[in-house]
């Protein structure tokens, strides 16, 4: 038990509070890497800390972090529990960050197992713990089977196939250097293959994100200056035929408060407290607040007035929207055009008052998230923080190799990293077969005395 494990320890659901538990010697170190509060390591045991989980500079979620030092914890090891509020995507993202920064995903029943091995749980419970591990492993393998579609599995298999042919070639060059008729693997070929690999993995990750968006909804916020018609737009979107799916009581902080469905896409609207009661509340959201909200959303509906020129505040918001998924909703087309809209992007022209063209917002969202060509039922996506973390580790591995190539590192050294990548990909599809490489080597190359 020298490694540090992490897992989501609450049932997952949109809008619910979820707890991510980290246990092991590196728990404080790893969490501190992704937590804005940098005093976690030095803080006293059994204390709660407020801050943000961050990915580089990007804020992922506002959280409460509990620090508990060994041995007075569930597992008798150092434990951190992260209370997050953001629903499945955010929770998974936090878990993914933990995995990338050095945690290992806990095996089924592993927290309980550690509690037992460290003497926290009575010996009489040993049998039931073994039962639990067995049962959970079965569940997990069923989930793993369901969690990854045949298409993704095949995609990963193809990627591994490409890699193994390079690896086998390098190995055969090492073990049979006297064979002049065997091609020598070159940096050029490795580079080609790696850039293809990188593209494919990025594509899978993107689709995976899209898949999650479709499954769990897009965190959406409506922003704009006062009186551009934000509440009217919202009312149109929440109109009679577009029913409200859920309406979860807001937590102490901003969170998903209502979900609407447009063309089968779920939009989880945040910070729309009281929309049903007072239109004014939404409408009165000012620029300052808008700017804050933009950071928290996956999709921003930016509303401007067709009937006015862009103001300084509008431009402030536009500046903030750079690199974000947003749609510019140009409202009040029933009035005379005054707006200088040439430079605006992702434009939809609507009249909320007359309920004209509001449905185009849905189309624009599809375009934005590349959902147009994809049939929902046909979507190939990876689920789970583990797989995403693995793919990100693969990307990291590719970067390491590129770095090595730059530094003139010998091919057989690069091969060590290639093999790592190959093993990582094998973990996703649950295929790591010891003799695979040798089989490949001797079936592909004719060597031997």
């Amino acid at each position, binding site marked *: 038990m*020298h*490694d540090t494990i992490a897992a989501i320890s609450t049932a997952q659901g949109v809008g619910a509070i979820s707890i991510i538990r980290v246990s092991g010697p590196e728990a404080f170190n790893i969490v501190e890497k992704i937590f804005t509060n940098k005093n976690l390591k030095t803080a006293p045991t059994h204390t709660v800390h407020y801050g943000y989980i961050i990915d580089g500079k990007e804020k992922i979620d506002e959280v409460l972090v509990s620090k508990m030092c060994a041995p007075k914890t569930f597992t008798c090891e150092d434990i951190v529990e992260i209370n997050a509020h953001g629903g499945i995507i955010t929770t998974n993202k936090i878990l993914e960050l933990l995995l990338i920064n050095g945690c290992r995903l806990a*095996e*089924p*029943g*592993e927290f309980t*197992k550690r509690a*037992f*091995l460290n003497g926290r749980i009575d*010996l009489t419970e*040993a049998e039931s*713990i*073994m*039962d639990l*591990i*067995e049962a959970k*492993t079965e569940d997990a393998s069923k989930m793993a089977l369901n969690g990854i579609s045949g298409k993704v599995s095949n995609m990963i298999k193809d990627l591994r196939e490409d890699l193994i042919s390079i690896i086998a070639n390098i*190995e055969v*060059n*090492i*073990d*049979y*250097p*006297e*064979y*002049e*008729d065997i091609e020598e693997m070159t940096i050029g070929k490795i580079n080609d293959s790696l850039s293809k690999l990188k593209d494919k993995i990025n594509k899978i990750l993107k689709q995976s994100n899209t898949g999650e968006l479709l499954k769990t909804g897009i965190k959406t916020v409506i922003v704009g200056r006062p009186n551009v018609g934000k509440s009217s737009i919202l009312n149109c979107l929440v109109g009679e035929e577009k029913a409200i799916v859920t309406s979860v009581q807001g937590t102490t902080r901003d969170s998903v408060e209502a979900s609407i469905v447009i063309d089968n896409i779920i939009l989880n609207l945040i910070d729309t407290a009281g929309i049903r009661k007072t239109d004014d509340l939404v409408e009165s959201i000012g620029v300052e607040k808008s700017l804050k909200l933009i950071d928290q959303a996956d999709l921003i509906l930016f509303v401007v007035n067709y009937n006015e020129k862009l103001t300084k505040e509008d431009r402030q918001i536009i500046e903030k929207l750079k690199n974000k998924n947003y749609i510019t909703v140009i409202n009040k087309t029933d009035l005379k055009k005054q707006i200088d809209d040439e430079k605006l992007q992702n434009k939809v022209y609507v009249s909320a008052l007359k309920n004209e063209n509001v449905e185009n917002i849905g189309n624009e969202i599809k375009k934005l998230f590349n959902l147009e060509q994809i049939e929902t039922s046909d979507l190939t996506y990876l689920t789970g923080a583990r797989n995403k973390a693995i793919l990100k580790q693969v990307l990291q591995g590719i970067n390491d190799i590129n770095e090595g190539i730059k*530094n*003139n*590192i*010998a*091919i*057989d*050294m690069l091969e*060590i990293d290639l093999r790592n990548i190959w093993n990582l990909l094998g973990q996703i599809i649950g295929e790591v*077969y*010891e003799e695979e*490489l*040798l089989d490949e*080597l*001797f*079936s592909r190359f*004719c*060597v*031997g*005395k």
Partner: protein
Amino acid sequence: MIFMNYEIIVVGGGHAGCEAALAAARKGHKTLLVTGNINNIADMPCNPSIGGSAKGIVVREIDALGGEMGRNADKSLLQIKMLNGSKGPAVRALRAQADKITYPKNMLKTLKDTDNLEIKEALVEDLLIENKKIKGVILENGTKITSNIVILTTGTYMKADILVGSTRRREGPHGERPSNYLSDNLAKNGFKLIRLKTGTPQRIARDSIDFTKAKLEPGDKEIHTFSYDNKVYYDVNKQVPCHLIYTNENTHQIILDNLNKSSMYGGLDDIKGVGPRYCPSIEDKVVRFRDKEKHQLFLEPESIYYDDIYLQGFSTSMPYDVQEQMVHSLPGLENAKILKYAYAIEYDAIYPTQLKASLETKVIENLFTAGQINGTSGYEEAAGQGLIAGINASLKLEGKEPLVLKRNEAYIGVLIDDLITKGIKDPYRLLTSRAEYRLLLRHDNADLRLSEYGHQVGLINNEKYQILLKKKDDIKTLLEELKQIKITAKENDYLITLNTTPLNNGITLYDLIKRPEIDINKITKYLSNNYNKEVLEQVDIMIKYKGYIDKAIKEAEKMENLEKKKIPDNIDYDKIHNLASEARQKLKEVRPTSLAQALRISGVNPADISILMVYLKKEYRHE
């Protein structure tokens, strides 16, 4: 009739047997080496070659532990070269052509000169066993010789069958008599056996070959030695070359036309032996790689004392007349005279999961096995096991813990762990890809990895040990010096001649060496102490590849933690109900000694390990 008592009897005088007997005798134990033919001691029945990728590193390891193979090879060189010299340091390895007359002769002399060691010419057909404990051996003529420990290194001799075309005859390599009953007797005592197969190509008369049609393959111009003694016995300018030729369409056509006559392709219908994947017959190569227009063959001299040229790459079990046609289709061999025909050989081995990491069998106490009997192939693999078996047999006599090399310490460790943990399907050969920590298991650092052990067990003498300590010390001093000495832009004129970017600011020599284009030998003028070549090379590698080496060390440490979690000998896997049935069956077969070893068994999953951990805690909490 009962002969006198020995502490250790080694059965078999091949590469495993020689190392085992020497280690035991050098450690002061009264040892008997029994061999079928004293003239075949340390014989090389196949390639006239020692070393090669991974195998060359094994020879270095044997030398670092105090074994004989490296030194003996150095005394018998026809040519030697460093493989993969242009690649990274982890995959460099020496490969030598060794003289098939000189090598055995030198080894026999060493054996004869060793105190405590007697050699006896005889065939062992049975073992003396009482209560599952070895008591000695029984020879073919019924003579019993008693001993505390027996080490079996019988190679391919157990029930050896030579296969040529549609004929099978009970015979060992070189027409030697095989051992007909030993494997049956092992089976009677509870051993699970496996039938394996290997082969060897033709030997051709040197003066019947037209070498002008072949490409010359000389040795390196630089001097190499396997042994850390660094004693040079050969003349680097008078190395004997090998030659390279290729098969052609005609060769392939002859093979395809006669395929059904090959023992393996229908000539014999009772083949049980599994051949090595990495040593396919020429029939296999032609059939499996039909698209290939030609296959590479090497003409390797066997000795300067006789005429045989070994035709590497052409092993076959075709009948003699087809072999004639095949050989004569080769360029330069149109008029070749075949001195020995190629053959395949089938033999009994014991299934290696029945061994402990010490190479003592789990079935019979104080019985050790090493070499091809354990399902491996190759002289180096055999010698490595022989050395370990000899050391551990002695340690057992001395009441000490066995020497078990870890996977991150030696290729020999990888080899033995693979054998006892994963078992085999075909004869096992070491390949670099089998070593997950190969970056740590280099040609250059075998002494740093292993000579401490060699000294502990008493096979590395004080004089050599002092050399090792000095080397370790020098490495430390040099690293410190490099970190302290800074050079500045003043040196740019010189740096430019080394094709490296000039300096703007001061830089330590340590950081300078990180640059791939900087050779440590080119900056020794800045150092205040003198260091030998090996020390400089070691430090250069340590600095240049630090990132990769550190990563490998970290991975290895993770494994070592699991390695420390021991599984008691008496564990009853049937009592652990939650184990998956495949895992249970494999665990019962292999009986791993640690959780790390358990995890390496294919079919044992992390969940099974978890269950095992909980069970161990529950059952053995007081121990």
